[in-house]
């Protein structure tokens, strides 16, 4: 392999070691923090680190396991390949020769530098047997391996992998046609006997994975599983099973008839198919991400609805009659009527609801106590825990798919073989795809030829200055916007609450979110980056920095100023205020997105047509839109604790956003001409959803749950020092009444509260991660060695074949065989 690949992989290997070391350091430091925490009396504030460390380790471990398994498969195919090289001459002698042999192709051998020129037939011998004898492809090849016959076969496909040999001594065969048919029959019988040994489902699964035609598969299935499987629907059931039989038959009949309708239930399936047909996989990944977020929010909404909203809705607390009417502006600001609804924290009462149920015919009263504060606390913590698990799982799955062990950036063959997107079906999009691939290939080729070209000192200096200027501009704008938001927040609290003032702050935040990425795009337009993917990463990073700083400033303002006693006199219910702020931010974000999508892109299209005189429509900026989605989701996660119905707002927003973006795509945008590595970008986005977004929100919410005193005038935690205390009180109450729960609580106190019990599994996880990384490393080395081995064996084979030819010619000089 080329030197660049080797150097790239070695860089990657040390990069892996560095990554492992940093993971080790992070978890070690968290372990140290834990130990320090046990020394002090109150170690509660180290708790978020437990979950973070454990989750990081599970995800790394899982992804590396998956990659090791994939690597093992690769190694196995390569070793099978090299093993088969040994058995090649034996196999070739046993195959029949053909009468009407194909014309040898007169093409120059590109690798003639390797050695002697061999005939095309010998080349085919050398390269024909390429699969191991036990893989499914090998089995299928045995079925299909027939000589190239004059008479066509009825059911098998054309012999693709026939070794068509000229120069080797083969036995003369007279009846080739019957031999050929018998050969096919023999191969099929072999395959059937192989499959018969397995169970029905295993055999079916293996048969399905074989690249044979459906007719062949049905015949083989009939041979292997004829007694039982074919009559699977008409089995004779014993008598006592009869009702079950009827029920199962009716269910099958029902699903069979309902099948065409079930396909419409899968959300947005046909729309996504049309989108991918026109715009390709990159834009499709944005919409898939949107759908994933919708389902996450749906789950969150169902949990909070079932356990929190509905019980409280059944027993409404007394409300202020003054605020019973709704005005439009109040719908936007969340004050007034909404502040006294299920939407916000203050509605929830701090009592235990006890219902007296009297059944009419049995005069017994059932007391079903439902403690709202405990329900609130447990719902929030458990829903965050479930979100955590779901995100880590999907992140590790996605990371496993995109983890490239043998990474090399300029991989031409990969681009040629894998870059055509078969989903695209519209003619203009196919033309765009042609252009995209052609540009990509030409760029890579020119890079290869001009790799040694160095830029002059002046050019490098100029590039550096442009980069520095761009970064300074972006960072300065981010800082200014953060400071601006901070001052506006301070101002809003101290003045009285006019409706428009409240909206002003959210509008300013959304405005910054909209304008500044445009400035970043402009800056990066001037800069010259080494590759298009670097440009994408830089723009994602700047965007992310902007959003983190805005949310960070807002969180700081809420947690430090509002929740603490000093500014408390102004607000009697700070949780309500924070919930309303988040509600307003979410709504303003949505309104600004709508305005930008319809007006902004439309105006930009007119501008570029009239002023810039370009006929090209703007390109859908996938990275920016995905970061907008992540920003909205962060706000939702921050807001669930203060406003349990916020996920419903987010669901409605995402729903409308889908149709809106689809519409604007069709009207205003076109597919991108730059290549977009969909799987890696999806992994990056899910990782961004996990790391700054979910973890940040979870840490802030857990901080408010543990450390901050709830307001004493409203809400379910009126008279407690923290939300967590309600959980503790509930545990105390349960200990007396239910024995099992007391055991559970004791287990919790010993296992989860004790840092040592978490430090030990962390160490074990780290060791496992390190071992897996070393295994992947070792397998990489084995792959390199096997490739070398294959090369050497082909050289040996070629030598042997030429020797055989030579001896043939010597021994039988009068023969016509060559």
């Amino acid at each position, binding site marked *: *392999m*080329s030197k660049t690949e080797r150097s790239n992989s070695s860089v990657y290997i040390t990069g892996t070691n560095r990554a492992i070391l940093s993971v080790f350091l992070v978890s070690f430091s968290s372990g140290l923090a834990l130990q320090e925490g046990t020394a002090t009396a109150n170690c509660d504030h180290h708790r978020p680190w437990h979950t973070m460390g454990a989750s990081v380790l599970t995800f790394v471990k899982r992804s590396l396991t998956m990659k090791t398994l*994939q690597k093992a498969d*690769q190694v196995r*195919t*390569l070793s099978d390949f090299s093993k088969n090289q040994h058995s090649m001459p034996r196999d070739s002698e046993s195959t029949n020769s053909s009468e009407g042999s194909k014309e040898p*192709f007169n*093409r120059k*051998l*590109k*690798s003639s530098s390797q050695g002697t020129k061999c005939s095309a037939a010998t*080349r*085919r011998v*050398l*390269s*024909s047997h*390429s*699969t191991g004898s036990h893989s*499914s*492809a090998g089995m299928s090849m045995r079925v299909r391996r027939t000589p190239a016959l004059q008479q066509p*076969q009825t059911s098998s*496909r054309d012999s*693709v992998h026939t070794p068509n040999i000229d120069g080797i001594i083969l036995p003369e065969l007279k009846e080739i046609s019957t031999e050929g048919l018998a050969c096919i029959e023999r191969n099929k019988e072999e395959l059937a006997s192989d499959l018969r040994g397995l169970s029905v489902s295993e055999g*079916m699964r293996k048969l*399905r*994975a074989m*690249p044979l035609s*459906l*007719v062949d*598969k*049905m015949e083989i*299935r009939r041979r292997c599983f004829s007694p039982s499987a074919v009559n699977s*629907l008409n089995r004779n059931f014993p008598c006592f099973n009869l009702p079950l039989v009827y029920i199962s038959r009716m269910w099958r009949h029902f699903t*069979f*008839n309902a*099948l*065409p309708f079930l396909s419409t239930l899968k959300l947005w399936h046909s729309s996504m*198919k049309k989108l991918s047909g026109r715009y390709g996989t990159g834009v499709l990944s944005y919409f898939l991400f949107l759908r994933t977020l919708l389902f996450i929010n749906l789950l969150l909404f169902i949990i909070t609805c079932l356990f929190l909203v509905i019980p409280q809705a059944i027993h409404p607390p007394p409300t202020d009659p003054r605020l019973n009417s709704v005005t439009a502006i109040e719908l936007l600001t969340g004050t007034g009527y909404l502040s006294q609804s299920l939407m916000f924290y203050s509605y929830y009462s701090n009592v235990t609801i006890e219902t007296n149920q009297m059944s009419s015919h049995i005069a017994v009263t059932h007391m079903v106590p439902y403690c709202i504060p405990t329900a609130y606390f447990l719902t929030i913590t458990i829903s965050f825990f479930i979100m955590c698990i779901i995100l880590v799982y999907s992140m590790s799955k996605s990371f496993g798919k995109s983890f490239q062990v043998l990474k090399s950036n300029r*991989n031409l*063959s990969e681009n*040629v*073989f*894998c870059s*055509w*997107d*078969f*989903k695209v*079906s519209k*003619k203009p999009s196919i033309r765009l795809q*042609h*252009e995209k691939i*052609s540009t990509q*290939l*030409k760029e890579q*080729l020119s890079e*290869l030829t001009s790799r040694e070209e160095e830029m002059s000192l002046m050019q490098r200096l100029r590039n550096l200055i442009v980069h520095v200027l761009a970064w300074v501009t972006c960072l300065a704008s981010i800082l200014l916007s953060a400071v601006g938001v901070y001052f506006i927040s301070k101002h809003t609290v101290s003045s009285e609450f006019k409706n428009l003032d409240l909206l002003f702050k959210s509008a300013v935040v959304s405005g910054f979110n909209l304008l500044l990425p445009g400035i970043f795009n402009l800056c990066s337009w001037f800069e010259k980056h080494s590759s298009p993917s670097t440009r994408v990463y830089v723009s994602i990073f700047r965007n992310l920095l902007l959003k983190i700083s805005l949310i960070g400033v807002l969180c700081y303002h809420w947690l430090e100023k509002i929740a603490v006693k000093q500014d408390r006199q102004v607000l009697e219910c700070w949780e309500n205020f924070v919930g309303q702020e988040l509600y307003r931010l979410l709504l303003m974000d949505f309104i600004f997105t709508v305005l930008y999508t319809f007006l902004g892109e439309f105006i930009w299209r007119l501008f570029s047509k009239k002023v810039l005189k370009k006929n090209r429509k703007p390109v859908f900026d996938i990275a920016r839109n995905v970061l907008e989605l992540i920003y909205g989701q962060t706000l939702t996660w921050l807001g669930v604790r203060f406003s349990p119905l916020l996920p419903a707002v987010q669901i409605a927003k995402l729903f409308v956003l889908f149709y809106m973006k689809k519409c604007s795509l069709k009207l205003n945008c076109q597919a991108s001409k730059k290549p977009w590595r969909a799987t*890696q970008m999806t992994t990056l986005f899910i990782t961004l959803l996990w790391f700054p977004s979910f973890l940040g929100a979870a840490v802030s919410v857990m901080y408010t749950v543990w450390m901050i005193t709830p307001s004493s005038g409203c809400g379910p935690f009126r008279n407690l020092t923290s939300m967590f205390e309600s959980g503790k009180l509930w545990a105390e109450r349960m200990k007396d009444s239910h024995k099992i729960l007391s055991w559970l609580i004791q287990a919790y106190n010993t296992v989860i509260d004790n840092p040592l019990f978490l430090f030990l599994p962390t160490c074990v996880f780290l060791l496992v991660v390190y071992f897996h990384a070393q295994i992947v490393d070792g397998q990489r080395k084995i792959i390199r060695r096997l*490739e070398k081995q294959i*090369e050497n064996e*082909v050289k040996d084979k070629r030598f042997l074949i030429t020797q055989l030819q030579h001896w043939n010619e010597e021994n039988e000089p009068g023969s016509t065989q060559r």
Partner: protein
Amino acid sequence: MGTTASQLGKDSLSEYQELTFLTKQEILLAHKRFTELQNRDERNHPNATRVPMEKILTLPELKSNPFRKRICHVFSTSEAKDGSLTFEDFLDLLSAFSDSATLEIKSHYAFRIFDFDDDGTLDCGDLEKLVNCLTGETDDTRLTSDEMRQLISNILEESDIDKDGTVNLSEFQHVISRSPDFVSSFKIVL
């Protein structure tokens, strides 16, 4: 919707579902689209009759695909090698291009589609035709002969492990396994 279900028997539906990677809904939809391509009198026996290649190529999913003729040839089981497909061949095609097909199946069929001369290996002629299909017909996207030569030699240098001048199935699968996007781009959905 119900009438098409009655034409395709339950037994054959479950058999198809077991042996291909398609779900029952996808098989029914394929049946519907396939019978639309047939003539009226052929519609009662979708398995027995073959639909000629020209009609298959009128499907919107295949109409503009540069590999459409190769796809028909690879999946066709006809003796005349004319690319005509029976219903079962059509199911094979959809199964190989479906969501749940394994990487092995996809890479196997991709190899056969790219093997323009059907000799079991991708040699220089195959690679040249492949690159021309990828870059299209217009003059400004087509590669010059110098670029083509350089591209082919680079491809062979990167992927030809046994240095015989051709890419065989194993080497092809080795290259494919390094690309995580292959499975999602090698898909056709009806």
